[in-house]
């Protein structure tokens, strides 16, 4: 059973790393485990391409067009990030920022985090989905505070409390969902299985479902980083180690959004109105606008890109909320390209920060001189995330904007305003960091930017050419989500 492998590998990985985390070859081991996960995910994907969606282990797990590409994506980014963190963490250790114990913790928690992500994606049970999301918080919170600096502790605390409280609301939502469902499906275990819920969603009690959706949206929305529930996000991204920021932005937010969308499907089915969609559009729009204006005040580079993640998450939420084949397609595409691009950016940023020994942007200068690869990685990544063609972000944003223009013309100016402000904010800072006279010095270890350029290459490809089967998935998923 491929699904089991996909989940078991990282789980074992967690244990293995907990045991051998101090070993000299621990980084390689870590990457190896991630590679195994990636391979099994690949096999799973291949299987889905062959046979289409299916469920497993008396329906506790299932794969369909929607989550399979997210699984592949998660496994892939998990792998590349582990590759990146190999030299990165070595350098951190070199600088004396981390001890061997901390590294062990890091590796094992990293694997467990991947496990929770994949579990959340693959499970069919809304309850387990919640458990996995909570577990994701628990695994990452210690990574955020890995450096044990006051700032990192504060960030981790906020992360823990805010997400914990938020996710608690999601649990209440789940309970309400169950409350509504058990009257149709009986009190046995099946009442929380998404596939079953999806079949009977038409008859679910509307008032309960709308109530449930509010709790679910506030709960998972906190983890998506929707304004005004986003406050933990910039701190956690800025203070944690860069690989963690990368996976937080790249994976966690995606998975949380996935949970929201799953529940939206049910609620839409029950209500038959555009209630859920409207809520999501509202939150999305608010997040985009607020993030855009936050952006222009940032001094810390990782913090800035955290806000840019909020902005893009808002854009996706908006698109999902808008619904319709094109918008949903665009949102899924945006999920993919944002995940790839943002993690690539964080890779580059990590090395840039190591190079100049600071995350403050005034002190990062002239990267293109000190190490051209980092400089180009950062500049290209930034331009990609800003929606510059020929990168894929441009494609999805183009589709989203055009659809908005077609369905809600009066919203487009707001979106465009926000995008313009964000562009000005991020771009002006990127320019100073990349170009100009230099400050940084050479690094003891060569930067590992292969992942960055692989990601950017993929994003570039998605900009001009979407492979047919991927497009087919997107379309199926879009049909699924509606």
């Amino acid at each position: 059973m491929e699904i089991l492998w996909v989940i078991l590998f990282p789980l074992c990985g967690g244990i293995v790393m907990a045991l051998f985390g101090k070993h000299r070859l621990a980084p390689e081991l870590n990457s190896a485990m991630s590679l195994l996960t990636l391979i099994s995910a690949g096999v799973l994907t291949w299987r889905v391409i062959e046979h289409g969606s299916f469920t497993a282990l008396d329906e506790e797990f299932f794969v369909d067009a929607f989550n399979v590409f997210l699984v592949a994506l998660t496994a892939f980014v998990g792998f590349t990030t582990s590759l990146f963190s190999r030299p990165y963490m070595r350098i951190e250790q070199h600088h004396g920022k981390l001890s061997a114990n901390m590294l062990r913790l890091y590796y094992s928690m990293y694997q467990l985090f991947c496990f929770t992500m994949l579990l959340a994606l693959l499970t069919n049970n809304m309850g387990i989905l919640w458990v996995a999301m909570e577990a994701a918080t628990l695994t990452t919170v210690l990574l955020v505070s890995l450096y044990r600096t006051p700032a990192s502790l504060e960030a981790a605390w906020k992360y823990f409390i805010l997400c914990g409280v938020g996710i608690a609301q999601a649990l209440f939502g789940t309970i309400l969902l169950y409350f509504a469902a058990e009257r149709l499906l009986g009190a046995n275990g099946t009442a929380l299985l998404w596939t079953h819920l999806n079949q009977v969603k038409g008859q679910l009690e509307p008032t309960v479902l709308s109530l449930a959706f509010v709790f679910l949206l506030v709960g998972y929305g906190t983890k998506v980083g929707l304004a005004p529930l986003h406050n933990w996000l910039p701190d956690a991204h800025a203070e944690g180690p860069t690989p963690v920021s990368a996976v937080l932005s790249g994976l966690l937010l995606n998975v949380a959004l996935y949970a929201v969308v799953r529940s939206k499907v049910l609620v839409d089915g029950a209500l038959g109105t555009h209630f859920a969609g409207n809520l999501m559009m509202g939150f999305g729009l608010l997040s985009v606008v607020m993030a855009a204006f936050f952006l222009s005040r940032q001094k810390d580079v990782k913090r800035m890109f955290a806000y840019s993640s909020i902005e893009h998450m808002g854009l996706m939420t908006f698109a999902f909320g808008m619904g319709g084949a094109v918008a949903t397609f665009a949102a899924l595409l945006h999920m993919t390209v944002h995940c790839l691009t943002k993690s690539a950016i964080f890779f580059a940023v990590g090395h840039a920060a190591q190079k100049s020994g600071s995350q403050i942007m005034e002190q990062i200068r002239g990267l293109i001189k000190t190490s051209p690869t980092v400089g180009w990685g950062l500049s290209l990544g930034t331009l990609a995330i800003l929606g510059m063609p020929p990168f894929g972000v441009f494609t999805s944003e183009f589709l989203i904007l055009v659809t908005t223009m077609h369905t809600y013309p009066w919203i487009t100016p707001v979106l465009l305003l926000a995008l313009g402000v964000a562009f000005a904010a991020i771009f002006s800072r990127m320019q100073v960091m990349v170009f100009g006279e230099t400050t940084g010095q050479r690094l003891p270890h060569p930067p590992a930017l292969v992942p960055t350029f692989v990601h950017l290459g993929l994003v570039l490809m998605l900009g001009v050419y979407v492979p047919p089967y991927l497009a087919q998935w997107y379309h199926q998923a879009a049909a699924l989500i509606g």
Partner: protein
Amino acid sequence: MSTLAGMLPIDWMMAIILFWLLLGLAGLLSHNPRFIVQIVFPLGAVAALALALAALAGTAQTQVATAPLGLPNLPFHLRLDALSAFFLLLLGAASVGISVFSSGYFRAMPVSKLGLLCLEYHVFLASMATVLLADDAYLFMLAWETMALSSYFLVTTDHEQPEVRQAGFLYLLMAHVGALAILMSFGVMLGAHGDDSFAAMRHVHLTSTSASVAMLLALVGFGAKAGVLPLHAWLPEAHPAAPSPVSALMSGIMLKTAVYGLLRISFDLLGVPQWWWGVLLLTLGLITALFGVIFAAVQVDMKRLLAYSSIENIGIILIGIGLAIIFHTSGKGALAALALTAALYHALNHAFMKGLLFLGTGSVLHATGERHLGRLGGLIHGMPRLALLMLVGVLALAGLPPLNGFVSEWLTLQAFLLSPGLPQPYLNMLVPVAAAALALAAALAGFVMVKFYGVVFLGRSRALAAVPPHDAGAREQLGMAYLALGCVLLGTLPTFVVLGIDPVAAELVGHSLAGNVRSTGWLLLTPMRAERASYGPLVLLLVIGTGVLFTAWMVRRFYHGRLRIAPAWDCGFPEQNARMQDTAEGFGQPIRQIFEWFMGVVKHMPSPFDVTPTFHSSVHDRLWDLCYVPVQRASEMLSAQIGRLQQGRIHVYLLYSFVTLLVLLAFVQ
């Protein structure tokens, strides 16, 4: 071979675009500067020539193609019709010279930069060609933004200087904002259930309001690229910052892609335009033209001066388009065709002459390392050939017969003069005023050009440390000679050019001048009837030429021809030096005095007790304070307010979530 023969022009063009991209990659990957400058750039020039030829062949009939790329079930559509063919011809023809020049110009550049520059340069060319060929909104925007991006990197080639980075930032920001506006305009015109191909947009029937909205958005977008007031701010910053061949490309060709987009949307996609668009464009064009030329007159930096003059010329082109729309909507097909022809002709001319001048400034920069007019002068002694080529460009840009600048202005004025009898009476009033303003702008252009050429090439060198200038290299000269020749030919053989443009006019306004033009043979250009107006530049050239030769011969014949070389007399003032000549500021001073009321002049007056008194005054753009600073302030203020929300206390954050939850619950209930 047969397949090659069977290729349509549009296939050739796609091949050329691909070839350019490959060239760029080759340049990036090779670490041999000699290979790049001696192989890659010349090959690029050859490709450009091929593009021009293909465009010439392509005017015959409209061709469509689709590339197997792009969004799923939405491939790239390409389309080659008369309009795009004309602009592709412009692109190819002008970039030949520029590429040849570049192959010489960049030889001194360090290889690390050269490879990237080569890539960006050719991507820039390819993206411009793609913009002109695109037939759906997605591909258009893709190419459009790629164009902006590649040119941004070209502009920031010398990114070590902060002002260059500043210029690049301003440029890309405005380009991006403009692109967003264009995107919205496409969104308005979108076809049934979101089909974004131009073919679908042509079939959509818009209400007059939404059509106007689309038009205005497009005007903002393309205006920001073309440098129409008040969206011109980036232009005088970016052009000086960029390497000269890049300035030539941007000013000569890229601005025209904006003109193309405007024409494409207003005439083609939106179907029939509305008359007040024409008035709007006409007014904007006039303001832009006057503004540009007046500010050009007071500049002290070679390339800034040329940049402002580009703004002026864009204004003139806009005037032509505006007239064309006015005539077209009031049912005067022939006049519309005439005005449109004038606009397109001027676009073509400007590509050549401005390209030539920017390249020339490049050579000057190479020779002297100096861009500031106040430290140049007397280059005609050191660089006679460059001086000759530049003289051609200067005369052309000043709109003097028998060169090309004059022809297009002549056509525009003809369109004005033949205009009476418009339905709207106040339009009738507007027309003479507009004509006057245009005449004024043209005359001022003469002033500007005298200043430019006189200060740079004539007189004595003002530089304190006089660099012994060497004339431009062979390939630079070749490139510039090509463009200069283009100026002369475009000026002396207007009939062929007008006949070449005619299909475009026929396509856009459904009326052709070919009949009138053919009626009097190729020597005389008669856009309307012969007794109305005619112009034979070749005759003019011949008569003046023979006049000069005859007089010279007569003088030689009847005159002893004794000649003494002596120091300049200058009313007998003995010890005069270079600093007694007019500086650039001095030359522009009367204009500044006249128009001081609308440009912000900052003067530094010496105190009467100053032992070494110095006076200098700088001109800056009022519009900057009026239009740009407030926006910046507003956004900063807003973000300051919003920033307050993130104020660190976890309790407040919890409160946010709590309130959100309660509000939503109340909302549900």
